[in-house]
């Protein structure tokens, strides 16, 4: 079962656990994620999906177990530029337009080659709303504005917390399209979701949370 050193998994969790006030939030987890793989995080409300994703993003510190990145212990500095985290809070400034918000994200994270913010906004279906303040967008449009980062930001691992919430059919299809393209291009993604995913690029790995 052990992979050869050359094909070390992108991300590997070994009995990973997180405690709040000295109580474990979820049972210790073991999983591996290779490049080109998608994993779904499943679990009921309050089972710890968000907590796990924040842990993997580096916002929280594991209380027990180990996290490895490309075979070496996880370290913020080596993998910060390879991870993209999108949580319940979208990290958009409501006073700025989607375009301005993207501009800032690009300044911080850099930009993929061959795509412009305008093209990304068109692709997520916000053409025409580029210069509207985010405050004036509907719930789903806000989400789409945040999703545009997926297109622009160079990252290998996507950590998406309930990306489907608030989106309409087209929006859900959009996410699936983005995920398929990302995985086909050698990326990996961890996605938490309650809904039907309808992902066509192969059967994703499933990580079950028990709160």
């Amino acid at each position: 079962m052990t992979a050869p050193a050359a094909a070390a998994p992108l991300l590997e969790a070994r009995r990973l656990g997180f405690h709040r006030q000295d109580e474990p939030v979820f049972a210790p987890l073991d999983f591996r994620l290779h490049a080109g793989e998608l994993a779904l995080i499943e679990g009921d409300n309050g089972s710890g999906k968000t907590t796990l994703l924040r842990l993997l993003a580096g916002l929280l510190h594991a209380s027990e177990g180990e996290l490895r990145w490309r075979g070496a212990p996880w370290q913020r500095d080596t993998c910060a530029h390879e991870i993209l985290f999108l949580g319940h809070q979208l990290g958009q400034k409501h006073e700025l337009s989607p375009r301005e918000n993207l501009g800032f994200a690009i300044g911080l994270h850099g930009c993929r080659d061959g795509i412009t913010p305008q093209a990304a906004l068109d692709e997520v279906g916000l053409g025409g709303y580029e210069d509207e303040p985010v405050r004036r967008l509907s719930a789903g449009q806000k989400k789409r504005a945040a999703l545009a980062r997926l297109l622009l930001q160079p990252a290998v691992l996507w950590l998406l917390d309930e990306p489907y919430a608030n989106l309409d059919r087209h929006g859900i299809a959009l996410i699936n399209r983005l995920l398929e393209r990302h995985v086909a291009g050698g990326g990996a993604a961890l996605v938490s979701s309650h809904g039907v995913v309808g992902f066509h690029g192969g059967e994703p790995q499933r990580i079950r949370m028990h709160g």
Partner: protein
Amino acid sequence: MSAPLEHACAAMLRRDLTLAWRRRGDMALPVLYAVIVVVLFPFALGPDLALLQRIAGGLVLVTVLLAMLLALDGMFASDIEDGSLEQLVLAPQPLALMLGMKILAHWITTALPLIVIAPLLAGMLHLPAAAMPALLLALLLATPLLSLLGAVLVALTAGTRRSGMLLALMLLPLCVPVVIFAAGAVAAAQEGLPWFAPVAWLAAALILAVVLAPLACAAALRIALDS
């Protein structure tokens, strides 16, 4: 692949300045607050010119510093609420540098307008012109010092329920020496004495703070967000 450092700094600065401009109503609040104080005082004390002149330097100084403190509390609040602070922490850029830029933007948007109107306020209270350079220099040194030190404390309280009181409690000991030195300079100038020494102390403290505060701020933020 990831963005060059100077681009990241520019993006940070640009974003915060744009935001401040979009919320310029809020940005003007400290200035208006200072104006209100200076307008209300003559009413509250009665029109005794000599008295006003006597307290002018100290009043303007304390008012400007307090106005800054008011704005300090909100330095990271909105960024925490909408999750953009998380994104900043996760970005592949040196956090200390990014926070330094944020502090700079905060200083530009809150302290600079105050410094610009300070001579006006001092004039309204009939501060002698001789003390004006000392007042301005003291403000120019004291305000960034407060911004920097305040940012560290604000970062530390970032993970709590934004306890304003805690912040005030921790800030008070920092303010006292700053006010002592700054007011010392102004008072000396008002009495025609040399006022170089206190200003030099402020400058030295500022230099130290510029180097260390962003680093401390980054460390504090990482601790405060980890829950």
